[in-house]
């Protein structure tokens, strides 16, 4: 009885933290991001680098945010990495995430010098936004895109990883 209560409590906690996470934006440094970018398993990871000031990013963001719903149960994980300045977290980023009702996990990369990390994210990334990485460790598939997507183009790319 006590065990089942504990499990119920843990499940509730998990649910709650999931719901809470959708509302918040955690601020991370590059080593933490690098850990997230090096996950190799049977999940297809989609990481989109964007910023509230980047018009093409804002335009394509709903398509990325929709992925977790469209591919629910297909092991697709979306991470939206805001490249806004950390000083804009409360003023711009959090209100944006709330207003757009983003369901995906959003983090803000708090680093001042892109020259120290862009190459480590991907040698092909020159620094233009938006930038997207899609990979699946188990399938040894990886692709990066320094350009914007239409919803149809994004779906086509994701499908290549779910074959």
């Amino acid at each position, binding site marked *: 009885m006590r065990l089942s209560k504990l499990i119920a409590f843990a499940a509730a906690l998990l649910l709650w933290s999931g719901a809470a996470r959708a509302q918040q934006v955690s601020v991370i440094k590059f080593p933490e991001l690098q850990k997230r970018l090096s996950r190799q398993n049977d999940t297809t990871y989609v990481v989109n680098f964007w910023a509230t000031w*980047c018009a093409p990013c804002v335009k394509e963001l709903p398509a990325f945010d929709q992925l977790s719903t469209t591919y629910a149960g297909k092991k697709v994980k979306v991470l939206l990495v805001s490249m806004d300045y950390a000083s804009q977290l409360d003023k711009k980023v959090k209100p944006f995430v709330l207003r757009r009702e983003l369901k995906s996990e959003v983090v803000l990369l708090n680093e*001042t010098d892109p*020259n120290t990390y862009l190459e480590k994210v991907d040698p*092909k990334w020159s620094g233009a936004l938006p930038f997207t990485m899609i990979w699946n460790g188990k399938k040894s598939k990886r692709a990066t895109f320094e350009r914007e997507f239409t919803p149809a183009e994004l779906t086509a790319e994701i499908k290549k990883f779910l074959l």
Partner: protein
Amino acid sequence: MKKLLSFFPALLALVLLSNFVDGPAGYQVGDKVTDFKLKNVDGKTVSLADNKAAKGYIVVFTCNTCPYAKAYESRIIELHQKYAPQGYPVVAINPNDPAVAPGDSFADMKARAASKKYPFPYLQDETQQVARTYGATRTPHLYVVTRRGSDFVVSYIGAIDDNSEDAKQVKTRYVEQAMTDILAGKPAATSSTKAIGCTIKWKKA
């Protein structure tokens, strides 16, 4: 040999395909640049060859609309003030398609250059051919070119400094470090850096 020849078309296709996937690479440090002829905000056209006294140029792809370009605007003016007297004036080029970025029209460029009193030419890359040839991807995206006879060779590509948000917090001035070497007649110790910027607003096909 025959076998090799039959293999060649496949290889060629592969090379072409990989080129297509990666996009045009543009200039690397050491490459000779092709001169351009672009319209300045004063209505005259500007080419690298025009200024016979220039030892080189600081060519910056920038625009009116990108927050990063705006953040660096006064620093670009300062670069010109510091390096034009030493033979390396700034040439600013706006590669954005005004149909995609309405604030980057020629009229808007004129207004911006006038209100901020740009001491350098601000050119419109109407066909976007210059940005493509250079391999520029974002604004701001900076190139230092150095004179070799009547040609110009790329000496530095990349970032202005290490802090776009706050000029006062800058620790490493990448382009100034490179300029110190270049002015001393040496290759830049760090000749290539990267920065975040706004993607160039390419014409919609």
